[in-house]
């Protein structure tokens, strides 16, 4: 489904990604973790081309995104993304947040888009808020809306960039619950997160990154019970109290 081959990226002279190679199969849930500044957020943003790369190859569903002839907009509409700071559009109601791209990018009719939006809002338990504006919702609610917004596009894969790290602690679980449900339904997911509970519960694989490199790329069981590198051991010791 997703293939990354020797992906490298520089900001000026500073190399943020070093030869990252990995694969995410269909229906697989992969958690990416690592200390802050390790490049994990940058890595996930390269997957749908939000951050350009200077070297390497990224292939999604047989389409090479680094190929200049690729219709990026069309490809992106198939890749759902959820951001740390939700990034709902503040000037649009919740419903319009969900329908805008369906209408403008997928060319769905207003009615079709609305139905889809309402059914997904219902699914994340926020149907009653359809006509409110983002600022009228709590952080947890906004992030659930953001997930619904991405799902509206019928994505073949979902990317999550630290979806719970900007939330107050009491709101983390309502968002994780939605994500767990999504994983059980067989959605292909790539998740940057520190929530090791989530990783234990649903991840198939864990990628551990440090200083722009993929240090470990292994099964969940292996990662938690028997991490190979000292850096991963350090990291786990700090994050699991």
């Amino acid at each position, binding site marked *: 489904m997703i293939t990354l081959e020797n992906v490298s990226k520089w900001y000026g002279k500073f190399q943020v990604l070093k030869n990252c190679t990995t694969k995410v199969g269909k229906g697989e849930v992969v958690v990416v973790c690592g200390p802050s500044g390790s490049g994990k957020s940058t890595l996930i943003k390269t997957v749908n081309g939000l951050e350009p790369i200077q070297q390497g190859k990224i292939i999604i569903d047989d389409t090479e995104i680094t190929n200049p002839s690729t219709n990026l907009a069309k490809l*992106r509409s198939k890749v759902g993304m959820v951001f740390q700071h939700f990034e709902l*559009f503040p000037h649009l109601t919740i419903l319009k947040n969900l329908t*805008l*791209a369906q209408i403008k*990018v*997928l060319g769905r009719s207003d009615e079709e888009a609305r139905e889809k939006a309402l059914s997904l809002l219902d699914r994340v338990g926020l149907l009653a808020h359809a006509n409110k504006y983002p600022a009228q919702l709590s952080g947890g609610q906004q992030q659930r809306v953001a997930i619904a917004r991405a799902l509206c*596009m019928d994505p073949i894969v979902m990317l999550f960039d630290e979806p719970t790290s900007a939330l107050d602690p009491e709101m983390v679980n309502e968002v994780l619950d939605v994500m767990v449900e999504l994983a059980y339904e067989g959605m292909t997911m790539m998740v940057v997160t520190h929530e090791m509970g989530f990783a234990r519960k649903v991840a198939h694989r864990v990628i551990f990154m440090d200083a722009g490199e993929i240090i470990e790329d292994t099964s969940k069981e292996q990662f938690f019970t028997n991490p190979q590198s000292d850096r991963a051991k350090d990291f786990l010791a700090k994050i699991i109290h």
Partner: protein
Amino acid sequence: MTFNWTLFFQSTPYGDGIYFNWLLNSAMLTLSLAATAWIIAFILGSIVGIMRTVDSKILNRLAIGYIELFRNIPLFVQMFIWYTIMPLFLTGSFKEWFIQELDPDIQTFILVSIALGLFTSARIAEQVRTGIQTLPIGQRYAATALGLSKFQTYRYILLPNAYRKIVPTLTSEMTNIIKNSSIASQFGGLRELVGLITSMNDQTNSIIEILCVITITYMIINYSVITIMRFVEKKTRLPNMMSGG
């Protein structure tokens, strides 16, 4: 010193009613000048401001050059250029029509409006740019990730939020454009509010009374614009937010 406070209710020597009519006409002219220039300024300012934020070096440089050019020459000098020099570069039938058939007052009106519009557009461009650039970068990411094109991202996401954010500074540009339109009085005897002062003083020799009335008129216009724009700001403000954006 004696004052003649009923001056504006006395008849003019031209049989066109009382001086108050003159005042109304001049106020209308001030507002039309400002409105015409505002339309030019808003459209060009938005285009140039957007050009400042796209990732094309050429468009960026062009926009910077435009802004620096129009904001570093005094408006009065720019009006001189438009009023005195620009008509000389007209050619052919357009020149004939513009210079010979068009009413001189309308000629002046057009030329000074363009000057005022371009001068103000450079300032609006800077505000539009700031409005767009101070939006969180994530908004751009989110729109792109949903598959929206660059044009759609600007049209549906960035611009509606940026404009909402800059309503207060646009308001002050609006009051500036009204005040700046007074410089038009120096060209072709245009009788907007400040132009009225000298021409009416020649008739009545009551400068202090005239100055008082014109000052009050400007204050009323200014106050009205601010009140209207405050209403606009309130209308466009999103629920549960301290300020738009």
